[in-house]
C-alpha cells in the first residue's frame, strides 16, 4: 500500500485536514469506486454494472462535483445543481440492460449565513459517518434491502453485514427513474471527524472497529490507511474507498477562527436548572 497523502486547507471560517484512498481490494482487478476529496468537496461513488459501465458511472457521479472545488465554501444551490448533474450524466450515459449506475455519498462544506456547514448527501449504500466527542454516528441511511429489513424489524442490525442480500441497493444514480438524494445539513464544529466510504470498507470492518481506530489515531492519513488495511486484511472482496476529514478549527459568523469546542460541549440549559 502506497503512502496516503494528507492535505490541509484553512478557510477564514474553517480549517481542515483530510486524506483519501481507494483500492481495488483483494479479489478484483477492477476498481469501480471513484473518489474526489478536495476543499470543500469530499465525495465517494461506488459504480456498479458490468462491462466498464460501473467505473464510468462512478467517475461521472464524482465529476459533477469537481466544479465545486475552490477556495470558498460552496453554496447550497450549487450543491443541489451538482447532485442534479450527477444524476443527469450518470443516467444519460447509462447503457446496457440493466444499465450501469453508481452510489454517491459524502459531504460538501457550504456557507449558511456565513457559517460553515456540512451538507451531507447520500444515494445508495456508501456511507458518511461523523465522529465527534468519542461517538461515531452513521449520518447517512443506506438505501439498501437490508436497511429496509432492519427498519421493518425483520433483520437485526448486527446480522445485516452477513445477510446474503447485503449488496442489493434500492436507490442509485443512473438506475431507472430519478429518485432524490437524502440530504442532511449539520454545522461544522471543531474536533469533528468525518468518514466517507464505500461499502467495501463497511462490509469488512464494523462500526465498533471503525470508532476505535478513529479515536486512537490522530492523523487523517494514518487513520485512512489503517481503515483500508483492516478491510484488506479482512479479505476485501469489494473495492475499498475511504476519505477522512478532520475539522481543526471553526469560526462562527463574523468571528475569527477560534476554538468552538467550549460552545459545543454543553447543550441547552434546562430552564428548571436556572431557577
Amino acid at each position, binding site marked *: 500500500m502506497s503512502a496516503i*497523502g494528507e492535505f490541509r*486547507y484553512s478557510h477564514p471560517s474553517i480549517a481542515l485536514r483530510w486524506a*483519501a484512498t*481507494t483500492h481495488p481490494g*483483494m*479479489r*478484483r*482487478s*477492477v476498481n469501480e469506486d471513484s*473518489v474526489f476529496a*478536495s476543499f470543500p468537496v469530499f465525495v465517494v461513488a*461506488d459504480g*456498479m454494472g*458490468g*462491462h*466498464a459501465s460501473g*467505473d*464510468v458511472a462512478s*467517475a*461521472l457521479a464524482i*465529476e*459533477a462535483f*469537481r*466544479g*465545486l*472545488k*475552490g477556495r470558498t465554501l460552496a453554496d447550497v444551490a*450549487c*450543491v*443541489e445543481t451538482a447532485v*442534479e448533474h450527477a444524476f443527469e*450524466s450518470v443516467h444519460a450515459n447509462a447503457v*446496457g440492460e440493466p444499465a*450501469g449506475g453508481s452510489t454517491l455519498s459524502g459531504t460538501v462544506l457550504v456557507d449558511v*449565513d456565513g*457559517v460553515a*456547514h456540512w451538507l451531507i448527501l447520500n444515494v*445508495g449504500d456508501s456511507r458518511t459517518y461523523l465522529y465527534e466527542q468519542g461517538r461515531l454516528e452513521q449520518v447517512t441511511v443506506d438505501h439498501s434491502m437490508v436497511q429496509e429489513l432492519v427498519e421493518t424489524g425483520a433483520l437485526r442490525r448486527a446480522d445485516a453485514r452477513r445477510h*446474503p*442480500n447485503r*449488496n*442489493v*441497493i*434500492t436507490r442509485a444514480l443512473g438506475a*431507472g427513474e430519478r429518485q*432524490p*438524494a*437524502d*440530504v*442532511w*445539513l*449539520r*454545522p461544522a464544529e471543531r474536533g469533528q471527524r468525518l468518514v466517507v466510504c464505500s461499502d467495501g470498507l463497511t462490509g469488512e470492518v464494523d462500526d465498533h472497529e471503525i470508532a476505535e481506530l478513529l479515536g486512537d489515531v490522530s492523523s487523517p492519513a494514518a487513520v485512512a490507511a489503517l481503515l483500508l488495511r483492516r478491510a484488506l486484511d479482512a479479505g476485501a472482496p*469489494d473495492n475499498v474507498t475511504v476519505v477522512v476529514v478532520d475539522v481543526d478549527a471553526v469560526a462562527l459568523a463574523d468571528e475569527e477562527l477560534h476554538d468552538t469546542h467550549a*460552545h459545543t460541549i454543553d*447543550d*441547552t*440549559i*434546562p*430552564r428548571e436548572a436556572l431557577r
Partner: protein
Amino acid sequence: MSARLEYAPGEAWCVAAGAAVVVCERDLPPVRARALYDAAATVRDAEGLRTILGLEPTALIGLVDTPGARVLLRRHGVPATADDATLPDRFGEEWALDETAPDAVVDAGGLAALAGQTLPLEGGVARVAAVRIAPGSADAASEPAPPAPVAEAPDDEARFGAFGQTLPPRAVAAERAEAEAGGAPAEAPAAPSAPAEQVAPSAPEPASPPAREPEPDGPIGGLIDSVPGFIKPAIDVSEIAPAPRAAAPSREAAEASQRPDAGATRPVPVAEPAASAPGALDMGDHDGMTITAEQARRLQAERAAAAQPPAAPAQHAGPPATGPLVLSTLCASGHVNAPGTTACTTCGAPVDDRSAAQRRRPEVAVVVLPSGERVPLGRGVVLGRRPRSRRVEDGRVPRLVTVESPSEDISRSHLELRVDDWNLVAVDLSSTNGTLLLREGSAPQRLRPEAATILQLGDRLDLGDSVVVAIEPARAEDAQ
C-alpha cells in the same frame, strides 16, 4: 503467432486462436466464447480484429500479431503496457489502437496480477485477470496449430472448469464443481508445455488462492458487487489535488442554468463532465447490477405515472411554484391553489375545481423572525441556537435559521417548520424547554415533542428567550 501467452487467472475470458488474442468481460457466455474462438482464428490484421471486437459487446481488448507490428485494440479503462511502458488511456474513441514492435512484451488487464503466478496458454479459452504476450521462446516458437481445447465436445466443460480459476459464470458453476471434484483443482491447466511460471519474489501476491473462495451469490441477480474483472479505475488517488484553485467558472454557469423557472425542464449540464463520453462505449448486455426485480417493477410504475404530463403550471403574479408536485386547482388567473379552495388565496378570483391536477406547489407561507426576516417554509426550516437538519428524503436542502439565545434557553435544533402537501406543520425537535403555540382566541399550547402539529396562518410560536416567530402567508416577493 510466434508469441508466448501467459495469463494470471481471473474472471475475464481470454480467447486465443491463430494470431489473435481477445479478452472479454466475465459476462461472456461460453457459447459466444466458442464462436469468438472460431472467429479469432481467422483474424490476420487490425481491421479483422476490429470487426470481431465490434461484434462482441463484452470485448475489452484484442491483440493481433501482424508481420510488421503487434496491434492492440483496447477499450477505455483497460490498463496496458508495452515493454513496461504504460500505454495511454484514451477517452472518447471506441477502441484505442496501439501498435508496438512485433517482439514487444505487452501486458494488459489487472497488471498487478501478473506479478503473481502466471500460467501459459497456447490457444483456447481461459479465465484471466491479466494477460502477457511475450516473444515466443525458442522451443515454443512453433506455429500453434489450432489446438482448440474447446473443440472437443466432451471436453468442453471440463476445460472451462480447469482454466477458469476463480469465478466461472453461474451457468457453468455446476460443471466446474464437477470438474474440480474429479481431480486436483490447483494444477489443472493441461497445457503440455512447461508452465514457465514466473513468480516475482517481492510481489505482494495480490490474489492468493485461499482468498478466492467464490463470492457469495445473492439469490437476486443484480448485486452491486457482481462486477467483472480486468478494468482499472478511471480515477486514482493521485488526482486528489491538495491545492484548491479559485472557484471554477462553471459554478456561475451552473447557477445560471439552475434557475428552474417554473415548468422548465432540468438544466442542461453545463460543464460537460470529462471528455470520457462513455456513451461512445458500445456496451452490450451485462448482468452486474443492483436493481432488484421489485425495484424494477416500482420504477416501471413510476415511469408510467410520470408519463402523464403534469399540466404546465401557468404562472402569473404570485409566488412562482418551485415546490414539489402536489394536487392543486387553478383560479381564473392561473394561480395555484389547494384543492377545495373556492376563492383564490392570491387574487380572490373563483377557483375552478375541474382544474385539479398535479402541479408544483408555490410558496404558501413564511415564518417571520423577530428581526422581521421572512423565511419561506416550502423547503422546510429548522430554527435553533445552532440548528441542523435531520434526514431529508426529497433532496431539497432545508433552511437553517439561527436564533439568538443568550441564556441558552433555546435548543440547538429547536423547531422544524415545513409544508406537507398543503399543510403547514410545526414539529418541536425534542427541545429542552419546549415550544408554545400561540393562536388567536386559544390558550397557549405546548407542542408535543416530535409530533406534527398543523398550523394556521397567523399562528405564532414561542421558542423561549423571547423569540417568538409568526406564520404568515407568502407574498410574491417571498419566493426563493
